[in-house]
């Protein structure tokens, strides 16, 4: 009775570290947007906010898988490579055989089948990640760095280091170019929003989400508490690879091409937005909502820089500063709160 009462009182007075950090990230995103609006003419427009989200659907989608893995204490640097690989595979499988040259001929599968098999290719990379991280206990940062190169390497071989975009069935470009009810919002953007919502529910309301936190917070205690760490981490790597595979296929459909350099450095952007969003690199802490707003922060910074006609060469430095400040601010805020 008195315990319950106290619990209620405490809830009213204090918030959890996670809610606190998320609030901090959201405020930072709003603040940075307003600040950019002061500097950049015509920045303060609703359409601009919409653009910040829609232009970043790919990275945010990847960020979902990467966030879950980070929370479980693992890295996934292979997602950018998978984006390239799955796109290239989908195109190659769908291209009609007997084209004018090697880059113009493929397997002639129906579009749906080509896309499905491309997804299997992506899952294979995810399986490889899981195999080496979970079974052979090799640090995930090394494994996924390796598979990132493997995936992109295969894509390069298939495209001879360039791209495949001819001899494709017409319906190949369908999925990536559906617009919603006459707006400028494409299907992939909607899929991304659905994915984020589903991920939030999984994270907060399911055993699957909770397992992720337990494993990341203390793998030894998790095992001794009867959790099958290996199985869960395998699932996470497969999910992350599946998301990346779908992103790659949607991009290939949008541009009607398979390009071996597509998704270059996306793995780093996905990592950066997760960190900006308050996901702890040590595992056991973080949220998808935080990651989403982390993505908005990064998008605002880069697009404001473009608006200020800074040359694109400055982008990396800007990103670096943003990440650095964000992480310092979070650590500092948490110690302050818990002093």
């Amino acid at each position, binding site marked *: 009775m008195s*315990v*319950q009462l*106290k*619990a209620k*009182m*405490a*809830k009213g*007075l*204090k918030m*959890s*570290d996670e809610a606190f950090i998320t609030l901090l990230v959201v405020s930072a995103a709003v603040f940075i947007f307003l600040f950019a609006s002061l500097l950049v003419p015509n920045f303060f427009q609703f359409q601009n906010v919409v653009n910040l989200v829609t232009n970043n659907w790919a990275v945010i989608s990847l960020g979902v898988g990467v966030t879950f893995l980070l929370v479980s204490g693992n890295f996934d640097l292979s997602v950018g490579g998978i984006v390239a690989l799955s796109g290239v595979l989908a195109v190659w499988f769908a291209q009609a055989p007997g084209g004018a040259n090697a880059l113009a001929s493929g397997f002639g599968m129906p579009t749906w089948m080509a896309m499905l098999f491309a997804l299997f290719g992506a899952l294979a990379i995810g399986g490889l990640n899981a195999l080496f991280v979970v079974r052979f206990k090799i640090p995930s940062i090394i494994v996924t760095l390796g598979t990132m190169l493997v995936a992109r390497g295969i894509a390069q071989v298939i495209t001879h280091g360039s791209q495949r975009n001819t001899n494709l069935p017409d319906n190949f470009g369908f999925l990536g170019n559906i617009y919603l009810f006459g707006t400028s919002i494409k299907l992939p953007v909607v899929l991304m929003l659905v994915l984020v919502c589903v991920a939030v529910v999984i994270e*907060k*309301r*399911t*055993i*699957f*989400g*909770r397992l992720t*936190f*337990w494993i990341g*917070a*203390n793998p*030894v*205690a*998790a*095992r*001794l*508490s*009867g*959790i*099958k760490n290996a199985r869960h981490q395998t699932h996470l790597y497969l999910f992350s690879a599946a998301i990346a595979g779908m992103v790659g296929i949607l991009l290939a459909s949008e541009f009607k091409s398979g390009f071996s350099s597509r998704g270059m450095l996306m793995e780093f952007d996905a990592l950066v937005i997760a960190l900006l969003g308050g996901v702890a690199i040590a595992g*056991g*802490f973080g949220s998808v909502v935080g990651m989403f707003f982390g993505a908005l922060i990064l998008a605002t910074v880069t697009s404001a820089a473009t608006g200020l006609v800074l040359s694109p060469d400055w982008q990396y430095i800007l990103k670096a500063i943003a990440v650095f400040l964000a992480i310092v601010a979070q650590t500092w805020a948490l110690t302050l*709160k*818990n002093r």
Partner: protein
Amino acid sequence: MTQQQSSALSVEGLTKDYPGVRAVDNVSFTIKQGAIHCLVGENGAGKSTLVKMLTGVLQPTSGSITVAGRRHCPRNPQEARDGGIATLFQELHVVDELTVKENLTLGMEASRFGFLVNSKTDEVAIETLATIEPSIDPEARVASLSVAQKQILEISRAASSGASVIIMDEPTAALSEREVERLFAVIRRLRDANVTVVYISHKLDEIFELGDDVTVFRDGKHIVTKPLDEVDGRQQLIELMIGRTVFQQYEPRDIADAEPILQVEHLKTSLLKDVSFHVNKGEVVGFYGLVGAGKTEIARAIYGADKFSGSVRFNGKEIGPTPHDAIAAGIALVPEERRTQGLFTNLTIRENVPVMNLEKISTTGMLSPSRERQAAEHFVAQLGIATSSIEKHTEKLSGGNQQKVVLAKCLFAEADLLLLDEPTRGVDVGAKTEIYDVIKALANEGKSICVFSTELEEILGICDRIILLYEGMLEEELLNGEDVDIAHILNVVTGGAEHKGQ
């Protein structure tokens, strides 16, 4: 001791506030030079918080500390050491990757021109270690030591630091009688060298055996400081601590016709040498032995946490090789070390409790927040976990309350066989009796319980049958009762029986 003792350390109006909690509340008292000064109080009374302020880990909200007549306001443990205060913290702080020797001198390495050199401190530390536990090899990697051995390592490090005040926060929580005896010899030697020792423990017999003075805390407040000679026995000390008396003693239970539920035969690991025993339904079996005798190894083998050879049958069937299988079969474990093996320290009490029984808080994979909350609230009330809310992160609980959360996790599993490895480690006397009552009630419901403990008092207090271990061997099994011969037990677990036999 001399009559006219000067003060080694005194605190004046010391207060520490956490958000929502006043952990230490306007405390003033003095510790005499060259004395062994004990601090006692319930879990969450503020003992560790006081220690952390003395050693610069935490800054007081208000109040002052005086050491050897000088104002002492360290900003970190290094500054506290420079001011003459060394500490053995309640939680382990060893570096697994380094060797024992390197750990011993960590933070006080002698260096010349930036290069490490061997120094006097190294030798003193290694010698102290050898005194307390000669079996630990200074060149061994710390990762290969057991939790208790790590604790001994930390004790040696603190004891040989050359500081004038040494604080020990529950140094013996994982140690058995023999190591405790040796530790006491070291502490007494320190006292003879005019070193002041501040000693925190929930084992009251130790306090009476070792201490010169005692300070009692309750709810963050200072209750009394006085010489132990003036305290009228254990019961009075308990009353000062918790405001009431507790009493517990073994009452024989009638379980003669129970059938065996667990059968262990020819269990062998790198440490265990052919151990066979059984546990009956509704029985409380105690495993007693020194540090390194194999208690934890038995628990972990049954639970599937370590590899072993031999046969373990539960309800007549082999259990699978992982903890997951063990839990599925109806076995739950309280592991030896709460922070590294039991708790998810950056999660809340609510998020910690249900992990071993996911079905009970979910339907088809979806969490039920209300059932989860109820579970946490139930155990906070049942085990008396001192916290402002179930939403408190477990790293912010006091040591004893963290232990209760680990126990809650295990109880929530609703297992038929509970393996409790040092279940009341760091838990205060009052809460201990409550936990014993919970254990007895479970046994009366027909659950079986194995208690692995270095505390003979605990074993004798609740176990129906006692299994004595020595260096990985099962030496003897005896029934508990009024006629148990404590001298004989101590003789067996220290290898006495062995030598007689030869």
